[in-house]
């Protein structure tokens, strides 16, 4: 067992899934000999051959639909969209077909497919390469939206996503692709979907986040701990369907909470969590629900991107407001 990065964990999960189930296939741009622009599929074409690791033409509208056809035929295609900024042509197929093929045929045809894409900012990437648009998918019926926040979760959740009999959009926080590292036993054990994870326990305030923002959120929790405030930190992991139960039970104990995400504030997945609290958790709320998010604007080009993304300081500012409320 050695320490590996998140992107290596993705690769490990892909290899494991392909090893154990020959219906698992990879499709996407530059995933073959190039190993993907982030090397998530490095070495897989050598290991599993061109039949199972297919470089596609540059046709983003097509991929998701191609996966629907393969899925209906019993394959488990895993499609890589090179960056989330190029995933939007998939939405038509995801809404109109992938998310409903099982329902509309009463289970006669199904779509056990995974759409993978790196997402999020913070790596000084070119225009259109840093967005977080997970909320667009989290509203679509019939699919799952899953985001890992660590190498171990990337491994376990991706295995679960591939084995899941329904379509999963699996978004990888590229800012933490290469660090931190984590020890992973390549044991083929999946991490459960549809479930939030409490990554830090605390009694004073609940911080809810996912993806790369786990780093700043945990850092903020440490800062608070030094001040004697114990923050509970929840990694949402599966954004759809959303495990409100875990969130509600935490807030029931802490009475206070803040939600942190990179995506634009309005209509982000944080809104759904806050709405769930406003409905089923109101009785426990001792303070307004804080949200720290990207602003409702286009992700700026690299020179300003750090001013767009939630920082530890911004998180602390909001959490302190939430804590101070009486």
């Amino acid at each position, binding site marked *: 067992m050695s320490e590996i990065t998140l992107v290596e964990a993705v690769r490990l999960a892909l290899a494991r899934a392909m090893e154990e189930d020959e219906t698992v296939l990879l499709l996407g741009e530059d995933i073959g000999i190039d190993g993907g622009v982030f090397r998530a599929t490095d070495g897989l074409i050598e290991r599993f051959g061109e039949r199972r690791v297919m470089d596609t033409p540059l046709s983003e509208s097509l991929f998701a639909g191609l*996966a629907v*056809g393969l899925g*209906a*035929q019993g394959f488990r295609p895993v499609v890589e969209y090179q960056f989330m900024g190029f995933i939007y042509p998939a939405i*038509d197929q995801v809404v109109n077909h992938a998310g409903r093929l099982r329902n509309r045929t009463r289970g006669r045809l199904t779509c056990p497919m995974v759409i993978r894409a790196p997402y999020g900012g913070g790596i000084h990437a070119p225009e259109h390469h840093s967005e977080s648009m997970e909320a667009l998918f989290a509203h679509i019926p019939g699919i799952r939206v899953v985001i890992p926040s660590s190498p171990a979760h990337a491994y376990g959740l991706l295995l679960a996503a591939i084995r899941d009999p329904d379509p999963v959009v699996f978004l990888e926080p590229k800012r933490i692709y290469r660090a931190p590292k984590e020890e992973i036993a390549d044991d083929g054990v999946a991490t459960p979907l549809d479930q939030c994870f409490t990554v830090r326990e605390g009694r004073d305030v609940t911080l809810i986040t996912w993806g790369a923002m786990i780093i700043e959120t945990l850092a903020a929790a440490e800062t608070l701990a030094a001040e004697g405030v114990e923050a509970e930190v929840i990694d949402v992991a599966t954004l759809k*369907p959303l495990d409100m*139960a875990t969130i509600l039970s935490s807030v029931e104990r802490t009475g206070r909470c803040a939600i942190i995400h990179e995506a634009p504030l309005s209509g982000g997945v944080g809104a759904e969590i806050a709405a769930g609290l406003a409905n089923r958790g109101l009785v426990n709320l001792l303070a307004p629900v804080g949200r720290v998010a990207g602003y409702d604007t286009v992700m700026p080009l690299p020179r300003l991107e750090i001013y767009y993304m939630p920082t530890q300081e911004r998180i602390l500012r909001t959490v302190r407001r939430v804590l101070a409320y009486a």
Partner: protein
Amino acid sequence: MTQVASFTIEHTRYLDLRGRPTQPLPAFAENRDVLIALYKAMVLTRTFDAKAVSLQRTGRLGTYASSLGQEAVPVGVAAAMRAEDVFLPSFREQGGQMLRGVRMVEILLYWGGDERGSDFTGPREDFPICVPVGTHAPHAVGVAHAFQLRGEARVAVCVFGDGATSRGDVYEAMNLAGVQRLPVVFVVNNNQWAISVPRARQTAAETLAQKAVAAGIPGIQVDGNDVIAVRQVVGTAIEQARAGEGPTLVEALTYRLSDHTTADDASRYRDDAEVSARWKEEPITRLRQHLSDGGQWTKTDEETLIGDCSAQVEAAASEYLATPPLPTTSMLDHLYATLPAALAEQRAEVEEATEP
């Protein structure tokens, strides 16, 4: 300037407008039973369409897309397929679905607003009707890719309209099929109209078959009102695909004699004179003429057939009308393989809200 590539598009027809052969017929067409089966399938389709339209007009069916005048396309295509092939229709190929074993009551259920209509008892791997125009072309390519991966001698057959050829995903699908030499046949049911948009405004391309050139695959035109030609040309394309020779695009030239759907009034945008003229080309009369010219079809045969078709269609309609609705909770029960815990509450709400 040097010429680096050249292409031609060919057109095939076997019967002229009066059902007389214009060239030697393909072998299958020498067999009376085969031709009569094609004829019957077309007549059944037309009978079914008429009934569906009348059910809609009387408020007992939702919007419906008739295939009046275009029966030779779905019937010819389905007849050219093997049972183990996979059919991916658009929304106007009921004639082909029926020939492949989808029950008429299922088609009525679908258009009547019941999901069970897409849960065929018939060809279980065939795709359901596809409403978002052209979005099933990528599925066909995925299905064909599955066949290729498993080394199966099966073919995916995808039918879409002239309008669909303007959709980028249809092009993307054909292009990938070309790269991978997939066992898929694309058939354009060119009925000259996409609702009110005439073929000429859909594209400046002289033929729709030439859309294939962009994908580097063969494109060919066929008289879509000549069921012999459709079956022959599509059949050849299917067998080539089966043999590993890659995909083909077939453009079948026909004409939409009906409104676009029951929700449409074609008289708003189309001359009656044009429609009348096109009635002379429709496929059923043409084949009947051919059969009776050869002494293979009598008035009695015709009467028997009409009676048979009506009886079958009426029985299907009765079964449809007698089908009780789905339980309301079914709207959540088939969404995922297992209902996610997060949806349990909503399911309870559906039950609560619909309690009598």
